[in-house]
């Protein structure tokens, strides 16, 4: 079969127009495989948080695009990311998702062992390789490390290819969202906590990423859940304290004006965030004792500045969404053109009251679980889009809202909160990083 896109830079670039993108971005399996080979190799992908591997020998097995990798604590002060295969026969070296291997990885097949930096430590009956040129081959080099790894204040990112941008250049000002989330701890430190929710989606991963800055859908798609929550709470007795659950649900029904005026900030390389001036997280009840801890740690002015920032959703292109005010990160793991695993992780603000983690964990459950009434309606519209795109009536997906021809090339701009500029920004970045190594 002749490839439609492999090796065809022009055909790939032509899929992204100024105000529309071609349906093959969501449907075409060859294009998906090219995304794994290029887009997910040329960009910095979130691997995990170093609090998941606190002790030397601790590991966490995950994926970067389609690549199985291991994040491992190889010394007190460093974490490595290794491709998760034995150099001998290819056996994946970990069974569990996380654990501790001691001082060595040991393959369960032939007991080859590897140091925590991946280098080969031992091979049983090694004399069998004497005089075979073994030392010059791939196998002798051990487990292959991912060459570009960056730990940003505990958040470990990796880039598989040598091409692409350096970490700081790739993220630029977008790192301020991570900074704000981490600074919300009185000691400036986060830990993974509260468990992870994993929700399988039968749709393309980009639908989820686009939806993170889609502010014209909550009052429609989530009327059934958030609207019902508001109605149900109306029956509460006068003077009853509004529960945390209703505080979390109700803002999903905010008006168009609320979302217009919250603003969107658009950064380079596909990153951006909603909620410049306010967000659905702005009006949560204060947690007793927390502000005082922050003032003691940072001084009043700085504490206020940190907590007044209420960014809604920050997209770290290509496949992360971060919610700083509630310490939540969603990772959209691509499985196939029509299949995505959504992992929703939460973090404890070290040194802050437990009630903050309780709210974070509750938000995750109410919004991101496979049993979430909010998640159900999101997935329903994604699946209907995945099905509807098969229609030959129109091959293009529209991303035109508040488009202006002079937006290209503008940097670090704040715009109307209902603009689809950030979506266009993501697709421009998609074309850039897809074709960078072709």
């Amino acid at each position, binding site marked *: 079969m002749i490839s439609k896109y492999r090796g065809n830079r022009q055909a790939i670039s032509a899929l992204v127009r100024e105000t529309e993108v071609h349906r093959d971005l969501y449907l075409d399996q060859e294009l998906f495989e090219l995304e794994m080979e290029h887009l997910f190799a040329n960009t910095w992908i979130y691997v995990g948080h170093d609090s998941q591997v606190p002790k030397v020998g601790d590991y966490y097995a995950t994926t970067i695009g389609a690549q199985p990798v291991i994040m491992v604590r190889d010394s007190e002060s460093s974490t490595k990311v290794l491709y998760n295969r034995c150099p001998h026969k290819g056996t994946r070296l970990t069974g569990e998702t996380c654990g501790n291997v001691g001082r060595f990885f040991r393959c369960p097949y032939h007991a080859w062992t590897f140091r925590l930096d991946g280098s080969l430590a031992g091979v049983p009956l090694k004399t069998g390789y004497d005089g075979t040129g073994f030392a010059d081959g791939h196998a002798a080099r051990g487990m292959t490390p991912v060459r570009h790894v960056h730990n940003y204040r505990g958040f470990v990112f990796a880039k598989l290819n040598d091409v692409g941008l350096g970490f700081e250049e790739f993220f630029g000002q977008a790192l301020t969202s991570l900074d704000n989330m981490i600074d919300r701890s009185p000691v400036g430190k986060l830990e993974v906590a*509260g*468990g992870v*929710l994993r929700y399988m989606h*039968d749709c393309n991963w980009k639908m989820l990423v686009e939806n993170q800055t889609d502010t014209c859908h909550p009052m429609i798609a989530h*009327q059934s859940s958030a609207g019902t929550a508001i109605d149900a709470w109306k029956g509460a007795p006068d003077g009853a304290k509004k529960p945390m*659950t209703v505080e979390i649900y109700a803002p999903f029904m905010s008006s168009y004006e609320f979302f217009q005026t919250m603003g969107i900030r658009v950064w380079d390389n596909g990153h951006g965030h909603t909620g410049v001036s306010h967000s659905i997280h702005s009006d949560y009840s204060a947690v007793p004792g927390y502000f005082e801890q922050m003032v003691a740690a940072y001084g009043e002015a700085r504490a206020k500045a940190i907590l007044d920032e209420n960014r809604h959703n920050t997209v770290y292109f290509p496949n992360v969404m971060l919610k700083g005010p509630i310490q939540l990160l969603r990772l959209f793991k691509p499985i196939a053109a029509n299949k995505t695993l959504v992992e929703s992780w939460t973090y404890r603000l070290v040194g802050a009251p437990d009630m903050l983690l*309780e709210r974070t964990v509750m938000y995750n459950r*109410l919004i991101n*679980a496979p*049993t979430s009434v909010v998640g159900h309606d999101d997935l329903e519209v994604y699946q209907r889009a995945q099905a509807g795109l098969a229609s030959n009536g129109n091959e293009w997906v529209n991303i035109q809202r508040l488009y202006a021809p002079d937006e290209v090339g503008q940097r670090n701009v704040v715009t109307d909160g209902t603009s689809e500029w950030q979506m266009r920004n993501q697709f421009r970045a998609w074309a850039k990083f897809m074709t960078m190594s072709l």
Partner: protein
Amino acid sequence: MSTVPSDQQLIDFVVREARLLDQQRLEDWLDLFTEDGHYWMPVEWGQTDPKLTTSLMYEDKLLLRIRIDRLKGKATYSQSPKSRCHHMLQMPQVDERDDRERRYVTWTPLHYVESRAEEQTLYAAWVTHHLTVVDDAIKIRLKRVDLINCDAALGSIQLFV
């Protein structure tokens, strides 16, 4: 009912609870919970804490009410078409009974099928009912559902196991 429920009455209660769900008589079902009752579906194997560890569901009566009202709503897109469910229970066992405190615990293995349009999904679970008696009626203080694959990457579960 006499002042204390017999084991058989507790068993019949658990069986009837599943029947109400299968028939989607959800208003009657919600009435089975005490005012401070909870429905809990952990996400971790052997999970002990529903507050600082997330769950698939940890719902008080208000959240259950929202879920039930939502299923009836016109704008509930994920329920067009509607889901159906089927509970296949093993005989419930009465694990604990404390007549003085009116605390009863039953344990019920089950297979649960949820279907929607062309899709049908089978789940296996153990359900632990923490029951009490209020005004001469058996009520649920806590219904805990432990899915055998609680920590797997699941698709949507839209009704009640």
